[in-house]
């Protein structure tokens, strides 16, 4: 369970997030919707320690991940992130993108990592592209690779920034089903989306970014 407690974040002296609390459970999909510039991406960046919060505390299963004062670098991997533009590593193949972190950090042997990547890529129906470089993939394929790369670390929470913005209706639906199959492995999902229909169909809860500032 992810607990965000009294989070505060200013950007250029303006409050983007103030006294915001949210709990995300395992096997739960939470969508964040709201206006452009309202701090949705910033919120997800704070969760992933790419931006430092000004106030508050974030806990995962009662472990303090970080507060505004300190951040625990090791805890980082428990929260995964799929960037809006995926940020796959262009010099590595699909499979190498997936196995890089577990191998470099010695979390898995090379063989174990490759087996696991095989499994995930198969599950995401992209295993035929294992040996291919990212630039040869379509947007939707890149997205699935980015998801596989994040899932390799077995995060407890997976964050996705506007995952459906580049998908057509049908692909988005398939993507929604994919999310539902992902959370079955005790993962919680936080996603930002502009697609209200998608959010209503596939998430357990919708949070408006107006709540970042406690507006209704």
């Amino acid at each position: 369970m992810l607990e965000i407690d009294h989070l505060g974040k200013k950007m250029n002296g303006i409050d983007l997030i103030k006294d915001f609390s949210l709990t995300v459970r395992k096997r739960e999909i939470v969508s964040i919707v709201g206006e452009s510039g309202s701090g949705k991406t910033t919120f997800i960046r704070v969760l992933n320690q790419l931006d430092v919060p000004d106030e508050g505390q974030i806990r995962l299963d009662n472990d303090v991940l970080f507060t505004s004062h300190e951040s625990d670098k090791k805890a980082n991997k428990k929260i995964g992130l799929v960037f809006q533009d995926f940020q796959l590593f262009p010099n590595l193949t699909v499979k190498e993108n997936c196995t890089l972190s577990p191998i470099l950090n010695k979390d898995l042997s090379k063989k174990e990592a490759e087996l696991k990547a095989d499994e995930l890529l198969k599950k995401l129906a992209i295993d035929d592209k294992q040996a291919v470089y990212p630039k040869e993939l379509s947007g939707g394929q890149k997205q699935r690779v980015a998801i596989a790369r994040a899932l390799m670390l077995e995060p407890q929470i997976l964050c996705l920034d506007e995952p459906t913005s580049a998908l057509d209706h049908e692909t988005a639906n398939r993507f929604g089903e994919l999310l539902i199959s992902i959370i079955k492995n005790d993962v919680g999902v936080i996603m930002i989306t502009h697609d209200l229909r998608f959010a209503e169909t596939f998430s357990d809860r919708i949070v408006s970014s107006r709540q970042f500032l406690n507006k209704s």
Partner: protein
Amino acid sequence: MLWSALPSIIGGLELTLKLFGLVLVVSLPLGLVVAVVKVYGPKFLQRLITLYIYVMRGTPLLLQLMFVFFGLPYIGVTLDRFPAAVFAFVLNYAAYFAEIFRGGMVGVPTGQFEALKVLGISHFKGYRKVIFPQVLKTTLPSIGNEVLALVKDTSLVYILGLGEVLRAGQIAANRYASLIPFIFVGALYLIVTGVISYLLNKIEKQYQI
């Protein structure tokens, strides 16, 4: 009779290649280190490097050569001809390479660094496996240009009285009152630069992912 000039020209070529290889092998990694420090190092080192690069790129290499070999002895630093040449060339070329690498490093999108961070990959490992290969790919064409320029620039060491290939050619041309040695030396340069261009192309293709 022209044939008798051949050994000295071949000897000159040997010296040219030795200088070229040595300078390349030292200045490329040095340039990379300078670039890394210029981007990530402390402020005062950044300034120092900016000044160093400004001086190296803003003055003629010929002057730098003369400064090292003829100038430094006045303050008690005397180098032999060849080490002096290598030293001056390395300083000069490392500056150019550093600027090229720096440009490549700044050109890698911040999202790539953030992706590494989110995946829990350390700076050092991330640089080695992800960032640097991208830098290499984008900078290879410019690096290649500099490498070819270096082949030709080595002829400048004639000013130190080093018998590189061009000087050997000129001596032969004078002795036999013939322009054949110049043509011959030109052909040698073309062969060397041709081989290097070919190799550079191959390397570029390999990184063309």
